[in-house]
């Protein structure tokens, strides 16, 4: 069975390394914070200016001056720090943040990503995404394998305006975990429980590399 958004977030949480700083994008990536594996210490950076982001506040304790990059009310953990936007992006461009998890509209099998604009239709802007993908060493994309019309979001080439080039390292979807190979291609690493390689192949327009038996994801 294909994963839901929580399943995708749980699988990405397994990628978190001990003692690292992590930036989580809006949407599915935000949910990753709820499933940090036991014994792993990570600190979440939100690019609007906080390191040490905590969970949502209790009802009635919201503070308009304390939000994340998704503009949601949050809390600060012990040891948290606030900073201005230039300092925030110094952390990002200076590669002090080790992992970035973000959503995408399209990913190409050479690691290109598009997630900020649909010409003539949707204009939201790139926010911090271009700085993040141009800088982080490790970039994981969290998204559905196909769009609402059932078309693949894992492509040979992005059709939408790019956010960054050759930067995505891994993609976790409702169907699979895939590694973007340095020489190009999506290498299939894991299948969602009960999802066949054929189903993944059918939903992947870009070059899919399948070697040997592909294990099922272990979630929970």
């Amino acid at each position, binding site marked *: 069975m294909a994963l839901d958004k929580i399943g995708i977030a749980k699988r990405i949480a397994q990628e978190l390394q001990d003692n690292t700083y992590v930036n989580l994008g809006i949407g599915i990536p935000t949910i990753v914070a709820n499933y940090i594996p036991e014994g792993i210490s990570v600190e979440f950076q939100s690019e609007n200016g906080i390191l040490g982001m905590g969970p949502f506040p209790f009802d009635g304790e919201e503070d308009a001056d304390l939000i994340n990059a998704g503009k949601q009310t949050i809390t600060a953990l012990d040891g948290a720090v606030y900073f201005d936007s230039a300092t925030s992006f110094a952390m990002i461009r200076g590669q002090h943040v080790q992992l970035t998890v973000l959503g995408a509209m399209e990913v190409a099998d050479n690691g290109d990503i598009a997630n900020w604009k649909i010409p003539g239709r949707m*204009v939201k802007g790139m926010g911090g995404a271009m700085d993040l993908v141009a800088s982080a060493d490790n970039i994981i994309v969290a998204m559905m394998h196909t769009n609402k019309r059932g078309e693949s979001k894992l492509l040979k080439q992005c059709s939408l305006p790019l956010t960054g080039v050759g930067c995505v390292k891994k993609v976790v979807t409702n169907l699979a975990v895939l590694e973007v190979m340095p020489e190009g291609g999506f290498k299939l690493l894991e299948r969602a429980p009960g999802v066949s390689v054929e189903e993944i192949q059918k939903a992947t327009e870009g070059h899919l590399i399948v070697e040997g038996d592909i294990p099922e994801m272990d979630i929970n």
Partner: protein
Amino acid sequence: MINKVVANVEEALDGVQDGMTFMLGGFGLCGIPENSIAELVKKGINGITCISNNAGVDDFGLGLLLQQKQIKKMISSYVGENDEFERQMLSGELEVDLIPQGSLAERCRAGGAGIPAFFTPAGYGTEVAEGKEIREFNGKPHILESALTADFAIVKAWKGDTAGNLIYKATAKNFNPMMAMAGKITIAEVEELVPAGELDPNQIHTPGIFVQRIFQGERFEKRIEQRTVRQK
């Protein structure tokens, strides 16, 4: 000590004119100079350029200036959550320059710091790089981004003193410190204005040298854009 205090928002915005460029601090609706924005709407100035990370929502923040069609051009990084903005942009009524958030912050900082331009990796290989100089450093391509300045930079701080020194609260800091540096005239509206000497010099975020006018805002609504909570 140079006294920067003006009596109110009217006096703070003295001299603003049609066609001027404004920087406005804030991220979403967090840390925006809401008293000054309301006054800009009231003054009815037109054809202005606004440099601000976001464009507010339809009925608050910069959205209020958009509703009155007072803005000619927006320089921002993220403008979702604002239907009127999207309509004006897609119809071509509003000029929009979308730039990566980190580049926006650094361009403001550079403008205030006397750095005319800098290279950044953000946006390489995208629309953002079109027409800009590309240079490789350490084997990685970077694009040349230029500094931004403004006729008026309008920032919002938590506390300020009569010398113009500012302290921001939590994530309401965001773009305010860089923009404070980059205005020909910088206006600070604060929640609490105190006599010089009351703020601990160790704790000040923006030194008063960057601020020309300071006033205590009459009223702060501090609207929350996305109220997210958990249950006890």
